[in-house]
């Protein structure tokens, strides 16, 4: 174990840049001020009409692109903003990044506005044709270059690669609500393999559309507490009733400690370990004994070479669904035991909502800021704690604390579980 290698003889992975956008604002400063101030970014949706919808609130990001530009444009804009902030902080060229790009992005799909436009064009061409025959006719008869990012899954990564000058073939991944954490894990693994000296991991999600909202709503996953939007996301509360969809992006520049030190970069923290485990129980529900989530946390701790006692704060997945929060607390209890009560656990989602594909990356950025600032962001809306969850949820008010190491959890539909351990920069 040298200065630049970890307990397993692998390169230590330094974090040298971080960027974030959420419904609270653009950039780390704005986000951190509001997050530690207990401010909510959840609001009434204005992007599309709410008729017939059971849920009418979300943490949409409304200050980046015009609504008519659609999801793909917003997803890209969020990722670009977070990436450029991270790269600038790392003091690396914003057009010649030179490392690998690992992108967590939501699946793309042609949007309704596009389908309506094709439908109208097709009707003009051959009124007798209906449905998809008509859409296909319009598609082949006319040019629609602006629709391309909504049908090509590689488009966002391709555009980001060109923008920042990332090397090689970027990976776009989805592990549902664990995607952001998986992107970071992919970057860590590539650096440990020695494939490059730096990587940028980005999680982005600008996909709050009516259809996406309805899909989650039909699965009864969303909060319907529409009256007071900022109070709807209440992780670990007894009256929690679902998550609140939200948008944003988070980005981390990862480098081998050796390369970062050699170029005189400021080391913000260390990505000490990653762990994952898939669940084979159900498409949306976790195995009742929590064993896959437990295995993912254990794998992350083991990968980092630390014990539960060495974790000072847990940045929870904490979605505010009845199922997740119960399962997450139970899993943590089985690992931390009695000590869990003494380890603060808070959920950023109480303020920014569930940013889905981006969540793991955004929460990794907030975990890093927690360490660097010695302040734990609260779980807001914690007025009616669930008595079954015996945790210190850092209720409602931020807390000053000497945090040396954070565990950040991400769990998702499809049995996805990914956890990160982030530590303070080496002395």
């Amino acid at each position, binding site marked *: 174990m040298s200065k630049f290698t970890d307990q397993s003889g692998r390169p230590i992975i330094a974090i040298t840049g971080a960027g974030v956008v959420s419904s609270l604002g653009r950039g780390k400063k704005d986000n951190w001020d509001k997050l530690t101030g207990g401010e909510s970014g959840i609001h009434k949706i204005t992007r599309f009409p709410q008729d017939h919808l*059971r849920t009418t609130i979300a943490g949409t990001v409304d200050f980046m692109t015009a609504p008519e530009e659609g999801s793909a444009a917003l997803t890209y804009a969020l990722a670009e903003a977070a990436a450029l902030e991270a790269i600038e902080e790392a003091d690396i060229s914003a057009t010649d990044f030179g490392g690998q790009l690992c992108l967590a992005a939501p699946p793309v799909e*042609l949007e309704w506005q596009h389908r309506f436009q094709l439908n109208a064009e097709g009707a003009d061409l051959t009124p007798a044709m209906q449905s998809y025959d008509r859409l296909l006719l319009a598609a082949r008869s006319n040019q629609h270059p602006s629709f391309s990012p909504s049908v090509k*899954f590689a488009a966002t990564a391709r555009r980001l690669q060109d923008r920042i000058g990332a090397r090689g073939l970027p990976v776009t991944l989805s592990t549902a609500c664990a995607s952001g954490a998986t992107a970071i894990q992919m970057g860590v693994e590539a650096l440990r*393999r020695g494939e490059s000296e730096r990587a940028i991991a980005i999680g982005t999600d600008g996909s709050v559309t009516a259809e996406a909202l309805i899909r989650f709503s039909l699965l009864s996953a969303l909060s319907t507490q529409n009256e007071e939007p900022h109070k709807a996301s209440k992780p670990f509360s007894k009256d929690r009733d679902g998550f609140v969809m939200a948008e944003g992006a988070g980005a981390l520049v990862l480098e081998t400690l050796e390369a970062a030190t050699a170029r005189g970069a400021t080391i913000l923290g260390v990505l000490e370990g990653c762990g994952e485990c898939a669940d084979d129980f159900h498409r949306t529900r976790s195995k009742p004994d929590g064993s896959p989530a437990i295995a993912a946390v254990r794998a992350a701790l083991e990968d980092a070479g630390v014990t539960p006692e060495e974790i000072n704060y847990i940045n929870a997945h904490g979605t505010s669904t009845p199922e997740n929060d119960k399962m997450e607390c139970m899993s943590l209890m089985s690992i931390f035991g009695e000590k869990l009560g003494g380890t603060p656990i808070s959920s950023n989602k109480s303020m920014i909502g569930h940013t889905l594909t981006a969540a793991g990356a955004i929460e990794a950025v907030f975990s890093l800021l927690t360490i660097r600032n010695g302040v734990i962001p609260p779980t807001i809306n914690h007025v009616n704690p669930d008595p079954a969850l015996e945790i210190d949820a850092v209720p409602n008010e931020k807390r000053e604390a000497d945090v040396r190491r954070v565990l950040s959890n991400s769990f998702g539909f499809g049995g996805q579980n990914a956890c990160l351990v982030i530590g303070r920069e080496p002395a």
Partner: protein
Amino acid sequence: MNEQNMDGRDVVITGIGMVSALGVGAQQNWDNLSVGAAPVFDSEKFAPYTVHPLPEIDWAEQISKRDQRQMEAWQRIGTYTAGLALDDAGLKDKQEFTSTMDMIVAAAGGERDVDVDTMILAEAGGDASDAATVVNEKLTTELRPTLFLAQLSNLLAGNISIVHKVTGSSRTFMGEEGAGISAVLTAAARIRAGQSTHVLVGASFNTEHPDMLLGYEIGHHLKRDGWTSVWHRQDSEGGGIITGSGGTFLVLEARSHAEARGARIYATLESVEADQGNNDQTATGERLGKISAATKLGDANYIISAASGAKERTEIEKEFLNSALKAVPVRGVASAVGHMREVQFPFAVALAALSLHHEKPVEQMDSRFEVGITDKPERVGVLSLGYEDAEGAALLTPANGGKV
């Protein structure tokens, strides 16, 4: 990798699951492709487009009725094919192996409900806000609540975990052909680095759905005037792509892991390289030169190309093959099975492994571009240019890595 380096961390292929218009399973696909069987395609059902349709499959061989109901076609194809690969590797229902098995799936999204979409398109008038209200109303009342799960990209992997108990890890890569290339590349790199011992890697694609064709046709990529070989589509009406339904899953293992459990080894995956960048001919040619040099494609007895048929990119590929790899014969497998998007690269890698295992080349499908091969294959190359982006290459050698 040189001969001194053959060691426990070599990446070997021990299981192959394949489905294409040419058959179900690795054996049927090999039997047809090794003798140059005529392609199976349908130019009527989605006219003016031609597709290579899914063959008849008894899903229950791999997926319970109950689980089948939770999936759309692409998930069924993938889950079924993954089961074939596990069976083939002797790992099916062996939880001591599947519980620690890593998984990388290349996927896009699932299929939409055509009836609901049709209803909305018919009812929504010209006014944009009225149309949005119709969307809300119809989707809320007409969509099957669990359809979302049958559409989500990472739920193919989720279904494989549920049905086949592969739970070591689960990652889904998105992004057309490049996702399939990255999946194989990442799986191999993890094994080589000791980050993984055995990985299930693959993809599936159902093209027989109008929304899937629409995705291509937004960019005018589809051929509209019937079938020709993938190398001769320059004068086609429309674009040059003929799509196909199918899937491929591979079990990749560290040699030591495979040997310890006495597994049959098809072939050694010596190297995989990938790149992406400016798509002009010069820059693309340079990248192809780089990845083919890194994988030693020039040493291959022949190359299995995953060429899509897309006019511009396939022309660049032909130029490259004709200039840089003139002496190396090539087989364009999309002529036979169609363009299967994320499946392209895994399918070509699977065929290369089968070719080495059976000590026979894939038969030519277009004698105007593909020359005959008489040698027993010892090194088989794989080359893939995505229809718009991404390039990948691989070199495979026999089970023992080509050592005596």
